């Protein structure tokens, strides 16, 4: 009898880290599908839809170097925002405004250009390091058969401490529900379609719905929505200079 309980306890002690390791592997596999070993660049279009207000559209050039945790964003239009930009180098993020020519420190958690996107939406996927899986189930998401993972942050640096993701068999995240520490749904991100760039994937567009901000229109609640469209993905090498403050200053002149 004692031996039985001893084996049971030992199994439990060994099983927990193995499960954690498996969870980490699962998340690492998801990260791998959307992370590039090479430099990545593309043209992003951010469309902000606030119910009852005209839509606003911003286009920008994105340069990413995932292996060094860097990115540079240069806003191309509208004219009023032209030349503004973001530079991320490891854990440091700066926002550059050509009016005044100043860099201000920003955070990955901050809203991107007053939209419903966060600065962290533009960084490389880092689920394996930032989250652990605390729950798992299967669910049909429209036409997709998905595994649903309940995630809890392992780092305080992430934008949302809890999340639920819907992942298809090809390890692509199709939907994310970002939640606060208490579990309150803060926003929903849907990625209806991906485009293949060599052996990796990039969303064609991401639909971000703010579950807290919106307006009742014609008797129906309509939440604020941000759509990020990604076009012209490219894996040609980006010069090192692109990931410097000097570059942002120069392109805005």
């Amino acid at each position, binding site marked *: 009898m004692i031996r039985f309980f001893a084996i049971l306890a030992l199994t439990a002690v060994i099983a927990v880290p193995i499960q954690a390791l498996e969870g980490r592997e699962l998340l690492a596999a998801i990260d791998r599908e959307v992370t590039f070993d090479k430099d990545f660049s593309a043209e992003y279009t951010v469309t902000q839809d606030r119910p009852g207000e005209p839509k606003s559209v911003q286009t920008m050039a994105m340069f990413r170097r995932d292996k060094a945790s860097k990115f540079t964003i240069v806003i191309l239009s509208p004219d009023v925002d032209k030349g503004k930009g973001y530079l991320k180098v490891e854990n440091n993020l700066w926002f550059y405004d050509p009016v005044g020519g100043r860099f201000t420190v920003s955070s990955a958690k901050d809203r991107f250009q007053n939209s419903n996107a966060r600065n962290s939406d533009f960084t490389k996927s880092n689920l394996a390091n930032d989250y652990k899986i605390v729950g798992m189930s299967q669910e049909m998401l429209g036409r997709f058969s998905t595994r649903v993972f309940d995630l809890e942050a392992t780092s305080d640096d992430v934008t949302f401490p809890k999340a639920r993701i819907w992942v298809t068999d090809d390890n692509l995240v199709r939907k994310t529900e970002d939640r*606060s*520490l208490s579990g309150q749904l803060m926003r929903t991100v849907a990625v209806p379609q991906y485009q293949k760039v060599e052996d990796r994937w990039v969303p064609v567009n991401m639909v971000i719905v703010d579950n*807290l901000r919106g307006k009742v229109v014609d008797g129906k609640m309509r939440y604020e929505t941000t759509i990020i469209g990604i076009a012209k993905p490219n894996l040609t090498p980006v010069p090192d200079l692109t990931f410097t403050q000097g570059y942002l200053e120069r392109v805005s002149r």
Partner: protein
Amino acid sequence: MILLLAWRSFLRQLFRFQVILVTLILGVAAMVILIGVSTGLAVALREKAARYFVGDVSVYSLLPDRSVTDQAAVLDALEAMPGFQSLCRRTEYYGADSTLFFGGDSIRQRKLVGVDWKIENASFRALDWISGGPLVPGDLKGILVSEVTADRLHLRLGDEVIVSLTTLRGQRNSLSLLVRGIFRDSSFFGYASYLDIEALNSALGYEPGTITAMGAILRPDARATVSGAWLVHGLEGKVPTYRLIANRAEQTQAMGNPEGKVLAVMTLDANLADINDILNALLGVSVLASGLFLLILMIGVGNTYRMIVFERTQEIGTMRALGVTRTRLVGILLAEAGVLGVVGLIVGTSVGEGLLQLAALVEWSGNSLAVMFLNNGHLAPLVPAEAYGVLTLALLLTTLLGASLPAIHAARLKPVDALREGE
């Protein structure tokens, strides 16, 4: 005897005093109104501010997590402080993301305040409630919002709002809370929402029982700066305490560079330094206006008495001929002036008080700026006893001084000349 004579003479000569008496009554009434309104506004403002700023004297933590560590020592020092009346225990959150959400709308709050309702429930009952009332101890699901917030979010009692904040560790968190009360407050104090201290502690990731500020409401006769200085001295031996903070700029400086200190003491006057400047300017104008009025009054009384002496020259000659001494004559005339002053004071004060009471009945809360100085939407005029004392002295002195020169002039008249001049 002189007073009786003066009173009878005053009644007989009332038609001669009419103009100056009416002026006196109106002037006294105006001064009573001025003092009553300005004091009432200041008292109402301080009461609201004391609720907003954790009492008349408050103790803040200078530690990075803003928690007050040695609560027992602070409590002992506060309770032993001169003028101590009641205690405030709070956890305050000033994060840039403290936002309330309801029905798709959102509004940023200047601060979220966790209150220990066991000890502060009574104080919050005095707020100007539009609906509901203060939370009861242990109500972890309730929140009190201002009218400004309720209007923006279209909130009603019982609605469930989402409160967004960031934990001590930097994690995004939220609370779902039910609106238990909507209070009216000016925009200065109105962008704060109040909830249970333990609900806020839990959401921010503090241990239960944590506070970030503790303060005391003082008795009306106590002086916050004196009590504050005493508190700093009382705490210094037990907990490293920063010097008494003089204004908000110094508070910011202390928080940025605490110089190894753990606690800071701040008075309501320091918190209200900017507003106090406005109130002091208002008070300065009041004092100047009162001084000008008294000067005009003195000249008016002097002119009136010159006329009275001129018109009563024969009477004065008769009095002198009957043996009334010069000193006694001056005494009679000054006593008359004293009676004039007292009557003006009594009637003027009654008129002023009556008008103040009428003003107190009017609902002024339509003006958002005025709300800051009102009590439940109404003016709460207050004329302190000392003010009445000063007013009485100043008025009597003014009338006596005004009447003194003509009285001395009258006393110098020879009886024969006076009788001849009077014919």
